[in-house]
C-alpha cells in the first residue's frame, strides 16, 4: 500500500545521489518533494508540517554522520522520523487480571468493524484465548447476521439481541462471564463523528462495558478527514489503539500516519485481505522501512512461518542440503506459496524488488498454469528435466492446456533457479551442522537472510531487465 510513497522517495533520492553535499537549497528541494509525496499519500497537512519541520531541523543541524552520502543521510532521517510518527513500538496486549478482557471496536460506517471483530476474535483464539463476540450494531440491517456467519466460520460464539446497544453489551458481558470466556470483543454500529446522538450512545456502551481496549477502526484509503474523525472518537472514547483496514489495496495509507499522530496511540493491527486469516500485528518500524523501500523481510518470514507446512519445507531443505532441487520440490513450494495469498501482496513485502516489477500486473491464475505444466510431467521428467525433448514438451503443453513456449519458459527459469538453490544448499548444510553455537549460528543466519534477500532479486530478475 505504501509503494507509491516509496517510489516518490526513490525519485527524490536518485536525484540527490548525484550531489556531493547537502546544502540548504538541497534540503529545501527535498523537503518540497517529500511534502508533495506525503500529501498525495493522504497524510494530513498538519502532520506533514510537523514531520517536515522535524526532518528539516535534523538535516540542517550538525547531527549528520560523516560516513554517509547525502541520500543516505536524508533517508536515515526520514526513516527515523516516520518510525517515530508511526508509533515507536508495537502495542502489547495485556490481559485483564479479572477476565474477561473487554475489547470495543468503533469507527465510521464501512470502515470494516464487523470483519475486524471476527478477525480479532480469531487472532485471540490463536493466542490461546477463548473469545466471545457481541454484536451491538443494531443499526445496519443484517449486521448481526454478518457477525454470526463470520463467528460460525471461525468457531466463536456470537451474542446479540434486538434491544438496544447498552443492554446488549450488558447481557452479553454477563453471558461471557457465565460461559467463562476470557476475551470479549464488541462490534458497534458505524457512526459519523459529528452524530451527537450516536456518539453519545457509543459512549454509554463504553461506560457500561469498561473496556480494557478501545480500538478505532479506520480505512487505509481515508483522506485528510482521518484526523478529525479520529480526534472526535478519541474525545468520546479514549482510544487505546488503531486497527487499519483494507491495507491490501494500493492506497498510500497516509491516514495511518495522521491518525497515529493525532490519537497518540499505537496502530495495533492491520487488516490485510478478505479472508479472516488476513490480519496481523502492526510493526511501525517495519512500515517505515517499507515506506523507504527497504522491504519488510520480517513480515514475510512471519507470514511464511504461519502458512508454511514445516514438514514439506523440511523435506525441501533436506534435499537442498543434498544438492538436489527438482520440479517436484518447486511444485511443493509453489503450492505453499499459493496459500500465502496473492503474489502481488508478497512482492510488496520483498525488498529490492524494482518498481517496474512491483507495478507489473501479475495474474495469479498463471500460478495455476505453472502447476498444470508440472503436473503434466511424468515423475522421471520432474526429477530430470534434461530428458524433455521436443515431443515430450509438446505432450506436456497439450496436457496442461498451455503452449510449448510457456513450457520452455518455465524450464528455462527453473534452470536459473536451480543454480540459485545450489548457492543456498551449502549454507543450509552449514547451519544444520552447528546447532550448538549460538553466536556463530546467529551470524550465519543473518547471512542467510541476506542471501535470500539479495541473491534472488539480483540473479533471478536479471533476465527481465
Amino acid at each position, binding site marked *: 500500500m505504501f509503494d507509491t510513497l516509496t517510489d516518490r522517495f526513490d525519485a527524490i533520492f536518485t536525484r540527490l545521489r548525484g550531489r556531493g553535499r547537502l546544502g540548504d537549497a538541497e534540503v529545501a528541494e527535498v523537503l518540497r518533494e517529500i511534502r508533495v509525496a506525503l500529501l498525495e499519500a493522504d497524510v494530513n497537512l498538519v502532520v506533514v508540517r510537523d514531520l517536515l519541520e522535524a526532518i528539516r531541523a535534523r538535516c540542517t543541524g550538525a547531527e549528520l554522520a560523516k560516513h554517509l552520502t547525502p541520500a543516505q543521510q536524508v533517508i536515515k532521517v526520514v*526513516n527515523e522520523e516516520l518510525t517515530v510518527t508511526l508509533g515507536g513500538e508495537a502495542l502489547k496486549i495485556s*490481559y485483564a487480571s479479572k477476565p474477561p478482557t473487554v475489547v470495543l471496536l468503533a469507527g465510521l460506517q464501512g470502515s470494516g468493524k464487523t470483519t475486524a471483530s471476527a478477525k480479532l476474535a480469531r487472532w485471540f483464539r490463536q493466542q490461546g484465548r477463548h473469545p466471545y463476540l457481541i454484536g451491538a450494531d443494531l443499526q445496519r440491517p443484517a449486521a448481526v447476521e454478518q457477525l454470526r456467519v463470520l463467528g460460525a466460520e471461525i468457531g466463536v460464539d456470537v451474542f446479540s439481541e434486538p434491544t438496544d446497544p447498552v443492554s446488549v453489551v450488558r447481557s452479553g458481558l454477563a453471558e461471557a462471564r457465565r460461559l467463562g470466556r476470557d476475551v470479549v470483543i464488541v462490534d458497534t454500529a458505524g457512526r459519523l463523528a*459529528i452524530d451527537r446522538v450516536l456518539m453519545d450512545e457509543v459512549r454509554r456502551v463504553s461506560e457500561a462495558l469498561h473496556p480494557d481496549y478501545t480500538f478505532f477502526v479506520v480505512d487505509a484509503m481515508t483522506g485528510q478527514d482521518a484526523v478529525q474523525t479520529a480526534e472526535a472518537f478519541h474525545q468520546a472514547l479514549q482510544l487505546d489503539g488503531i486497527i487499519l483496514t*483494507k491495507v491490501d489495496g494500493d492506497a498510500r495509507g497516509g491516514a495511518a500516519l495522521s491518525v497515529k499522530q493525532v490519537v497518540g496511540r499505537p496502530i495495533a493491527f492491520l487488516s490485510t485481505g478478505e479472508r479472516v486469516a488476513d490480519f496481523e500485528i502492526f510493526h511501525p518500524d517495519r512500515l517505515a522501512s517499507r515506506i523507504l523501500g527497504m522491504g519488510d523481510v520480517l513480515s514475510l518470514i512471519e507470514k511464511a512461518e504461519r502458512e508454511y507446512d514445516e514438514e514439506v519445507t523440511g523435506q525441501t531443505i533436506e534435499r537442498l542440503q543434498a544438492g538436489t532441487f527438482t520440479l517436484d520440490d518447486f511444485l511443493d*513450494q509453489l503450492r505453499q*506459496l499459493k496459500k500465502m495469498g496473492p503474489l502481488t501482496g508478497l512482492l510488496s513485502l520483498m525488498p529490492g524488488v524494482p518498481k517496474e516489477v512491483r507495478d507489473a500486473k501479475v495474474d495469479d491464475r498463471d500460478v495455476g498454469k505453472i502447476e498444470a505444466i508440472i503436473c503434466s510431467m511424468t515423475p522421471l521428467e520432474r526429477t530430470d528435466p534434461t530428458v524433455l525433448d521436443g515431443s515430450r514438451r509438446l505432450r506436456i503443453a497439450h496436457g496442461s492446456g498451455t503452449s510449448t513456449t510457456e513450457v520452455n519458459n518455465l524450464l528455462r527459469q527453473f534452470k536459473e533457479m536451480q543454480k540459485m538453490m545450489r548457492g543456498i544448499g551449502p549454507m543450509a548444510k552449514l547451519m544444520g551442522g552447528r546447532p550448538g553455537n549460538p553466536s556463530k549460528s*546467529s551470524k550465519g543466519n543473518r547471512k542467510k537472510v541476506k542471501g535470500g534477500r539479495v541473491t*534472488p532479486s539480483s540473479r533471478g530478475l536479471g533476465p527481465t531487465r
Partner: protein
Amino acid sequence: MTLVIVLIVVAVALLVSAGLVVSTRSRLGAALEGRGAPQPGTLPSTASTISAQAEPEPEPSPRFEAEAARPVMRDRLGRARGLLAGYFDQVRGRKGIDDATFEELEEALILADVGVATTTRVLGDLRDKLHSGALSATDPTALLQALQDDLVAMFDGDVGSLAYGDGDGPTVWLFVGVNGVGKTTTIGKLALRETESGRSVVLAAGDTFRAAAGEQLESWAERAGARIVRGSDGADPSSVIFDAVQHAASRRAGLVLADTAGRLHTKVNLMDELRKVRRVAERPPGQLTEVLLVLDATTGQNGVVQARQFTEAVGVTGIVLTKLDGTAKGGVVLAIRSELGLPIKLVGVGEAPADLVPFDPAEFVSVLFG
C-alpha cells in the same frame, strides 16, 4: 507469463531461505536478535513482542483517570465546517492578494482532499487570471468567488439524473465499488425512491461474498416493496444478476438494481468477475444504462485510482458520493472529474432514504467552502 514465472521463482527462492530461517529459529533461540535486518537497530526483535503477548503481565488499568478526563462531545458539525471556512475568512480578511493567500487556499483545498495536482492546476488558473488582469489584485472576495465559479464549472453538464432504457426490457443499474462504501445502502434507498415514484423494482443481490449482504438487501427490499432475487452464498454473481433480469422481464418490472460485492480494484480476479457481471447485465432483454461507482466521501487520493480502475474494467457512467454528512468534504471527486471526466450523479448526506439526493455542483462547492 514469463514475468510471473520469474516472480514465482524469486518468491520461492526467498521463501525457501525464509523457511530455512524459520526451521533453525527455534534452535538459535535468543541469538536471533537483529536477524535479517537491513539496518540493525531499526528493527526490533519480534521474539520479544510475541512473548510479551503470550505471557501477559498485569498492568494497572488507566481507565479511572480516563473516565474523569472524558469530555462531553461538542457540536462537531460547527467545528468541522469552521475548519475550512477559517482559511477562507482569513483570505477574505486581508487587504490584498499575496503569496500567503495562495498558500491558504492551497491548504484549504488539500484538506478537502482535492489533491495536490488538481489544487495546483486550479490555483494556477487563478494566478493566470490575476496576472492577465481579469481579476483585481486587491479584491480577495472576488478571488474567492472566481475560485468557486471555477470549481463549479468543472462539473459543467452534470445533471445528477439517472438514465432509463428506452426499449422494452428492464433498465439495469449496476453498482460497483470497494468494500464498505455503502453500495447496498445506496441501492436500498434508491429502491425506495423508485418504487415511490411508481416503478416496479427488482433488486439483484449480487454480493454473494460478504456474510449476510443478501439479508441486508432483503430488509431494504421489504421496506421498499421491491422484489429481490438472491443466489446462495458464494454463488456466481453473474448468474444472480442474470436471474434478476429474467425475473424482471417476465414480471414486466421496469428497473433492476444490481448489487455487487465490494472489491479492491487491485484484485485482478475480482475485477475480471466484475467484467463478466457487466457483460451479463447488458445482455438483452436487460438494458444497462448506468454503471455507478459508489465512493465514500472520506476517501483520499486513492479515490482517483479506484475511479480509473473501475472505469477501465466496467465503464463507469457516474459516481455516487456517500457519507458527505460527516466532516469529510469529498474533494477527491474534483480530482476524479478533472482527470477522468466522470460525472457525479448522486450524493448521500444522511442516514434517511430521503438523504440520497441528486448532485448539485453549486451546492457541493459551497459546502466545500465551509
